[in-house]
């Protein structure tokens, strides 16, 4: 049942980022091009997603267990450390160059796009390198 719900959630998320244009690197780069021919479309997408997310998290916070009976796990860490900032900095640079972030990388690779496949393999390798060198867990 849990896997089934996860599958449904993944499908909804996938359709969401496809339909909104979030998987289109050209649209992402146009959104980041604030000093040029700026396309604000994705700002609305972010706004819409955050609105839905705010309602969802408000409902989730009231519960001790999820609808599937699992303990609610909402991240509670508050400390802004150098790892967070450095990681976000690296992520932002990469996102600004390629116009692809991790979710869309999976979707695009799923379409068989060869650039996206290269990106996805490299991204997974990057995560693997992190795991080998940094992971304290």
């Amino acid at each position: 049942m849990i896997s089934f719900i996860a599958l449904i959630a993944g499908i909804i998320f996938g359709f969401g980022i496809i339909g909104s244009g979030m998987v289109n690197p050209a649209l992402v780069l146009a959104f980041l091009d604030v000093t040029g021919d700026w396309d604000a479309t994705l700002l609305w997408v972010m706004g819409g997603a955050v609105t839905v997310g705010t309602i969802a998290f408000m409902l989730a916070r009231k519960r001790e267990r999820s609808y599937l009976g699992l303990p609610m796990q909402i991240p509670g860490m508050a400390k802004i450390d150098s790892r967070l900032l450095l990681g976000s900095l690296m992520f932002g640079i990469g996102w600004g160059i390629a116009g692809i972030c991790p979710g869309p990388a999976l979707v695009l690779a799923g379409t068989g796009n060869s650039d996206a496949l290269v990106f996805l393999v490299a991204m997974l390798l990057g995560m693997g390198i992190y795991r080998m060198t940094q992971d304290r867990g």
Partner: protein
Amino acid sequence: MLAFVGLLVGYGTRLGSGCTSGHGVCGLSRRSPRSIAATVVFMLTGFAAVYLLRHVLV
């Protein structure tokens, strides 16, 4: 180039504990201070990367 950028995104996502969806959507929805900081940082560096590539290094 694309492979290098993929590495950067993969490593950065893990080090920063999140991406556009994790910090940008879920984190902002929770009003998480960490996610607000992360989102500001990756938006600014994203703007900077596009600015350099499209308007400076052309």
